[in-house]
């Protein structure tokens, strides 16, 4: 029904024709009639417009008004390009950081898993707070007990992580991390294959054929998604398995493995130790809630059963260990390590946003003070309160909209960075991409900022006329009696009121305060990192190259392995550039956690108090000359020799802290120790032939650790090779690999790295922490500097006249410079004080939620304060210089 423009024109033409005809019939002259008719009709265009506007929806008018305001805002902002650019970039940083972190938080903490009915999927963990074991996993007898007694959980799935030397699926033999699972695992997890089939109950038991499922990541990245892989046979250590399927993309938990195989592929899983020993724990346990059962009900039932099991088997659950059981939804379990760090990042991003907003508020406030005259005149001319607010809103909408667009644009690369970072804590972050929530977050933040900012400046409207009059009056007065009032508009005089000044300074102080919190936090992380990186480890870090030479590649054990080690050591030792070579069992830090927390032992003459358990020491294997190669000094006695073998006298070497604690009289040498863990069977006293310095190979922060070394030769196991290089260590890698391959073609040689690089690798989460936080702090600092500089620049330009007068009456320019500088420093000092107070208050609040909150030490706090004061001085320099160089005549005349 809506008429077009032609339709309207024709209707008007028809009207005019009738009107003219009437007049001619009444006897008017045709030309005169035509003129009269047009005159009578009035404004053609206006009438046509109002006819057309009848058909427009109502919101059209509001939008049109806003569009007009926005056009006006764009034009007036184009005249203040510097300010607009600063505001847009500042907001973009704030919005981009928030949007990026938010999408990672959403992806990691809130998104459901792909597993079927993932909210019924639970993860069960056994821990022993008394032994500082946060995850002691389960043994097969324990799992069988649960299976036979629990009713609230319909099915259990078990998963244990092993390493296989894998041959097949392309390339040379190599070690792969693999999961070994029972037939119920995939059904409990609720996962599907993308190719072939997964493992089921038929794959259970010792008589099933070896079967393996590839994880999607391994299949798609290492095998280029090759569909012909199904049905291929692979060697896994001594056994073989057929590839039966590829798992759909899913969160790999508890371990990121490349293959998942059935129990028969791992001889260990079929052995008596695994099946019957209650304390042989290496299996992770998952469960699916029975229909109708709640998590709380399952928790209550499982805890009760666990307590019953503990009473039935007191020997496996010592009172001191305080073994506990916990149930969590798998989703929460996966997210939990990332939760704290992500929430901290979210808080940091929010702080950056607050800083950005207060900086922008500052700039806008300063701008609106400059525009006070313009606003007053517009109010005097009849612009209502709403119209003025709308003008300001349009302007802040333009600024914040541009900021949001830019922010969302930079959110994309930021998400990639943050996701890679968060992947260290939660595997789910790997799958995080920019999602539409970024747009919502960006847009929402921009709208919030726009509305806030539109309400920052004071409006003249409520007392519009009085205000305008007084403003005009003031202007005229300042111009001198005769000057025309209108000139004040063009002159753009700025009058800074105490209220505005206070607000400007308050915003600048807020920025400094928040920047201080971020800087101190970043300083703390950096300090930790530096401590870790420079801590003395007791090793020769630069020249020692470590290799993994996993033993079970060909299923050969015992004497043959020892022969292999001996031959490899001999031939590598003859290579040019090799100062020393030895076999060990443990690459410092890289192998942390793989040997458990230690083994119980006892020693000559050591009497334990009633109820006390045997001490725990780290069990390590060492070949002759290992200590020399690693640079660990031998404090007493002798090193192992090639004669220390299983047939000769059992010997051991202990670390200094074992010698001191177990042999307080200093008679460790030639004393005896023996392992008391039932795993070693009947205790065999081993003569202590040497004492070496303490090293901490579990943690880079060296703490004295009790360690006891046994000769590789007597155990027939090692798996790690250490080469002391004379020159560039990495230059030796190809030669070492070639030599080993010559001896045993199937032997994997992997992960060559100097100890220094191993430590760097281990520390990379800390480094990333410090990097990300420093980046935030850097952004905050930058914004705060802009803020302080802006406030002072504004204050100086508003006081040009004051400075002119001061200079005119003889003030030294240097004094003015110092004055403005001290204003900047004062803002910074108040901000730092507020930040310190607020930060500690915040930390004590946070401590209630997170338990322990680490507070930065003195050095980071003082450092952050110094950086901020320095930044404030730099930010004040330009305005201060301008104040001291005010041209007296110009300043006095300008008003």
């Amino acid at each position, binding site marked *: 029904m809506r008429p077009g423009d032609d339709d309207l024109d024709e*209707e008007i033409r028809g009207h005019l024709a009738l009107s003219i005809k009437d007049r001619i019939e009444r006897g008017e002259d045709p030309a005169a009639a035509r003129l009269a008719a047009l005159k009578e009709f009035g404004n053609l265009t206006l009438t046509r417009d109002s006819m057309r506007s009848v058909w427009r929806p109502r919101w059209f008018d509001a939008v049109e008004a806003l569009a007009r305001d926005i056009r006006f805002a764009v034009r007036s902002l184009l005249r203040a390009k510097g300010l607009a650019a600063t505001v847009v970039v500042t907001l973009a940083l704030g919005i981009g950081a928030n949007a990026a972190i938010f999408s990672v938080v959403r992806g990691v903490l809130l998104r459901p898993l792909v597993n079927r009915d993932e909210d019924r999927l639970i993860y069960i963990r056994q821990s022993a707070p008394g032994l500082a074991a946060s995850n002691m996993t389960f043994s097969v007898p324990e799992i069988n007990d649960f299976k036979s007694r629990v009713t609230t959980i319909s099915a259990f799935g078990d998963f244990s992580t092993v390493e296989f030397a894998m041959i097949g699926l392309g390339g040379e033999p190599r070690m792969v991390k693999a999961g070994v699972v029972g037939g119920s695992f995939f059904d409990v997890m609720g996962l599907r294959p993308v190719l072939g089939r997964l493992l089921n109950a038929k794959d259970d038991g010792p008589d099933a054929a070896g079967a393996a499922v590839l994880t999607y990541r391994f299949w798609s990245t290492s095998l280029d998604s090759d569909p012909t892989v199904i049905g291929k046979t692979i060697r896994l250590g001594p056994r073989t398995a057929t590839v039966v399927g590829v798992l759909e993309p899913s969160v790999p938990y508890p371990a990121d493995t490349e293959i998942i195989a059935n129990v028969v592929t791992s001889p260990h899983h079929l052995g008596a130790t695994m099946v019957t020993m209650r304390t042989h724990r290496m299996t992770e346990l998952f469960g699916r809630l029975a229909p109708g059962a709640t998590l709380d009900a399952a928790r209550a039932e499982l805890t009760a059963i666990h307590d019953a099991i503990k009473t039935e088997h007191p020997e496996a659950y010592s009172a001191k260990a305080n073994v506990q059981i916990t149930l969590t939804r798998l989703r929460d379990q996966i997210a939990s390590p990332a939760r704290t760090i992500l929430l901290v990042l979210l808080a940091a991003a929010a702080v950056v946003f607050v800083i950005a907003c207060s900086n922008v508020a500052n700039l806008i406030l300063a701008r609106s003070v400059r525009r006070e005259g313009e606003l007053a005149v517009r109010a005097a001319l009849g612009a209502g309160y709403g119209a003025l607010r709308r003008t300001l809103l349009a302007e802040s909408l333009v600024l914040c909209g541009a900021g949001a667009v830019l922010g969302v644009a930079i959110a994309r690369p930021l998400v990639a960075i943050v996701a890679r970072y968060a992947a260290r804590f939660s595997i789910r972050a790997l799958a995080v991409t920019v999602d539409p929530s970024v747009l919502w977050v960006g847009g929402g933040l921009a709208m919030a900022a726009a509305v806030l900012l539109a309400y920052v400046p004071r409006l003249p409207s409520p007392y519009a006329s009085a205000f305008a009059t007084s403003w005009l009056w003031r202007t005229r007065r300042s111009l001198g009696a005769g000057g025309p009032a209108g000139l004040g508009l063009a002159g753009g005089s700025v009058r800074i009121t105490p209220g505005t000044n206070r607000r400007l300074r308050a915003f600048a102080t807020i920025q400094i305060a928040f920047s201080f919190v971020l800087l101190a936090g970043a300083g703390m992380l950096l300090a930790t990192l530096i401590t870790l990186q420079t801590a003395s480890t007791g090793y020769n870090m630069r020249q020692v190259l470590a290799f993994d030479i996993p033993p079970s590649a060909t299923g050969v054990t015992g004497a043959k392995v020892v022969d292999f080690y001996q031959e490899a050591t001999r031939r590598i030792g003859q290579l040019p550039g090799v100062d020393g070579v030895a076999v060990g069992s443990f690459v410092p830090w890289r192998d942390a956690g793989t040997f458990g927390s230690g083994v119980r032992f006892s020693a000559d003459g050591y009497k334990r108090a009633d109820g006390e358990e045997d001490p725990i020491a780290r069990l390590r294997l060492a070949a002759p000359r290992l200590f020399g190669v690693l640079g660990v000094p031998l404090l007493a006695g002798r090193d192992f020799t090639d004669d220390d073998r299983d047939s000769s006298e059992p010997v051991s070497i202990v670390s200094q802290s074992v010698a001191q604690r177990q042999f307080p009289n200093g008679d460790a040498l030639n004393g005896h120790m023996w392992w008391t863990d039932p795993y070693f069977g009947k205790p065999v006293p081993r003569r202590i032939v040497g004492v070496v310095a303490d090293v901490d190979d579990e943690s880079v922060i060296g703490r004295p650790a009790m360690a006891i070394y046994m000769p590789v030769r007597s155990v027939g196991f090692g798996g790690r090779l250490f080469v002391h290089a004379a020159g560039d260590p990495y230059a030796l890698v190809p030669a070492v690999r070639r030599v080993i391959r010559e001896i045993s073609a199937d032997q994997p040689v992997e992960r060559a790295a100097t100890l220094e690089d191993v430590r760097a690798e281990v520390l990379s989460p800390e480094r990333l922490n410090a990097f990300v936080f420093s980046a935030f702090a850097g952004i905050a600092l930058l914004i705060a500097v802009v803020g302080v500089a802006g406030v002072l620049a504004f204050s100086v330009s508003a006081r040009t006249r004051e400075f002119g007068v001061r200079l005119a009456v003889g003030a030294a320019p240097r004094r003015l410079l110092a004055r403005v500088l001290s204003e900047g420093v004062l803002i910074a000092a108040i901000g730092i004080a507020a930040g310190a107070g607020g930060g500690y208050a915040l930390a004590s609040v946070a401590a209630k939620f997170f338990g322990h909150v680490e507070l930065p030490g003195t050095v980071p706090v003082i450092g952050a304060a110094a950086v901020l004061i320095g930044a404030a001085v730099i930010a004040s320099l330009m305005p201060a210089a301008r104040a001291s160089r005010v041209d007296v005549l110009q300043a006095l005349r300008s008003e």
Partner: protein
Amino acid sequence: MAKHPDAQRLDMLHGTLDMLILRTLQWGPQHGHGIGQAIRAQSDDLLKVETGSLYPALHRLVKRGWLKWEWDVSEANQRAKYYKLTAAGKAQLAREQDRWSQLVNAIGRIMSPARAASGGPGSKE
């Protein structure tokens, strides 16, 4: 808006234009010019409808569904838009007429308590 100093025309009382249009069209379809002339003639030249108000009002009534239009050739031998009451328009006219007489009654009682129903200068409104 109507500020013709030459005539002692009465300004259109706010909100009555729609009713007058509907009423005029009761006699049959008419084009805009004809509606304007009819209102003028029937009010003895006291009411004059400006084209600037008339046409937007016509379109508003069409939009509300009280009128519809069709094109026809006018007496000036040119295509013109003829407006016509719809059923809804007729109902609306009846409603407005009721309301109007109630209003006139009420105002009349206030302005001339003695029930001077005609002749007073204010009664025309």
